[in-house]
């Protein structure tokens, strides 16, 4: 077949180019611009080279925040994914109660993030909060404003409360796509409950689970509002996650160069991890297809 040459076709991609330029490329380039300059106020900028990046890589503060961030994401994934699967496995498959469960499960997902933070901030207070007060009364030494473990436990439980539903709903969708014949065949083959999970349910859920893990990883890696509202990053720097640290640096201290370099590093880490997920997922698809 002859290929039609029509250079005017380029104009068709122009709207998308403009949109992406204004929504992503230009803002990102501003950040890149800041990351290689220094300013002493009055909007005067000087070329600074890569010193912000050097400083960043040698900054204990950044490495600590990154470590806390990775720990946070790892912990919530380790809890939310198995818990979500467990919830999905135990949800009714159809009927009235299936609908009730679905609605209840999606409720936490609909609450605005700062409201989630506020709810838990109040809920966990030792003086007036139901949870904090109860724990204190039954003799648990719990005060999230002073204790490292209490602060971490609070923001982790909050995140689990907020986001396990998402994993559960996605896993549930994966489970619903399994034809009944598979379960019937497993019964005929006398497969144990574990074998049914291991060889039927888990492989069929894997695709959506990868999406769930990717979404939860990215969201938790960028989490800001909820822990900020609850702990404000404290006690000390105990719950100062990457984004909290970044905001402190950019808006609190107004270290634009540092913050810009920080942002770029943040962006690259997320990009790298997303790329790994993407590769794994497309390989899974390929394996399914061929």
């Amino acid at each position, binding site marked *: 077949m002859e290929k039609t040459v029509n250079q005017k076709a380029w104009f068709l991609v122009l709207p998308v180019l403009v949109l992406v330029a204004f929504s992503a490329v230009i803002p990102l380039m501003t950040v890149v611009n800041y990351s290689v300059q220094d300013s002493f106020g009055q909007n005067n900028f000087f070329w600074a080279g890569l010193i912000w990046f050097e400083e960043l890589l040698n900054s204990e503060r950044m490495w600590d925040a990154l470590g806390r961030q990775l720990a946070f994401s790892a912990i919530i994934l380790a809890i939310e994914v198995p818990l979500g699967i467990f919830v999905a496995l135990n949800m009714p498959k159809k009927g009235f109660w299936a609908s009730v469960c679905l609605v209840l499960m999606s409720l936490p997902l609909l609450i605005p993030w700062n409201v989630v933070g506020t709810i838990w901030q109040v809920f966990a207070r030792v003086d007036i909060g139901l949870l904090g007060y109860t724990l204190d009364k039954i003799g648990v030494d719990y005060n999230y404003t002073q204790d490292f473990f209490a602060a971490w436990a609070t923001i982790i439980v909050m995140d689990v409360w907020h986001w396990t539903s998402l994993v559960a709903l996605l896993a549930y969708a994966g489970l619903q796509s399994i034809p009944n014949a598979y379960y019937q065949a497993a019964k005929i083959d006398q*497969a144990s409950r574990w074998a049914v999970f291991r060889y039927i349910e888990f492989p069929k859920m894997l695709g959506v689970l990868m999406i769930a893990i990717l979404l939860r990883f990215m969201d938790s890696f960028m989490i800001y509002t909820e822990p900020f509202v609850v702990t404000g990053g404290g006690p000390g720097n105990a719950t100062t996650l990457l984004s909290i640290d970044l905001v402190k640096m950019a808006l609190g201290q107004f270290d634009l160069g540092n913050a810009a370099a920080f942002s770029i590093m943040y962006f690259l880490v997320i990009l790298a991890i997303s790329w790994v997920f993407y590769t794994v997922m497309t390989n899974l698809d390929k394996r399914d297809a061929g």
Partner: protein
Amino acid sequence: MAKITLDNLAHSYMPNPASEDDFALKELNHDWADGEAYALLGSSGCGKSTLLNIISGLLHPSQGRILFDGKDVTGAPTAERNIAQVFQFPVVYDTMTVRDNLAFPLRNRGADPAYIAQRVQSIAAMIGMEDTLNRKARGLTADAKQKISLGRGMVREDVNALLFDEPLTVIDPHMKWELRTQLKRLHHDFGHTMIYVTHDQTEALTFADKVVVMYDGRVVQIGTPEELFERPAHTFVGYFIGSPGMNVIPARIEGDRAHVEGGSVALPGGFAPLSGKVEIGVRPEYARLTSGEGLPVTIRRVEDVGRHKIVRATLGERDLNIIAAESDSIGPDMTRVTFDPAGVNVYVDDWRVAPGSTQPSKVGEAA
């Protein structure tokens, strides 16, 4: 291996079935003889799969009992019944190799590894997949997956019965033939009780010793292929089996003659007066075009299918199919049809009445 008895069995998917129409499977009494191969034939939605799932224990019947060799298993779970079942669409464990798939039912029952290896090897030979044993089941063609499903169904030697739920639907025609032959040979060699659900009459007639025809949740006839052809117990059997199906013509019966539109027809015997909707059924094979005597017909078209010709005609208002030999020439003067009296069956309210009796004898009803 076992004799399977269905005692007063019926099933409805509704919690409180009120009338007979609410039942997906209407009351049924039947013995599946030990070691026989049955085909369960019927159109979609007639209750075939329901019956199969009740036998395998995947479904609990609304009423009645199931007995294996006289032992009541109605409440027993699938595992206890020791049944193998193959489904319409291939069910394989994607993440396992073909070998593990085949070994799975044996491993779950704690069989000896040496025995498993030997058994898997022979099943693989039977389904022609020895070369792919170490491949993951994921990504195989639907054909191959269904062969694995069949293999998994056959891997256990001690099963009470082997149930097949339209297993060859997804297999291509050439392989269909081969697998069906394999299944027949397996039956011949091991003598399992086999129940094979299908809506394909050729498949049913070639596979089974006895064909069970179901219509609208009811078993309408159980018989050998020859019985189904010569003496369909219900007009549905006449219509469903045969290509084209039986001609059904409203009639008035008087002794050994049936009066139909345009004349009268000789019957194989004498009948007492019958009440209800009376019809005669004649297979196209027993109808013959003549230029002399017989009922007047209008020929609409002639289809030459190679082995014979199918004449599509009308008798009065009704369609009538006639099969003529390939060598017969059909002249313009051949406007009459005669029926071979031995091939004429009489139906009252869709059920066949034997010469001399006034009541149809229906299958499945308690004596």
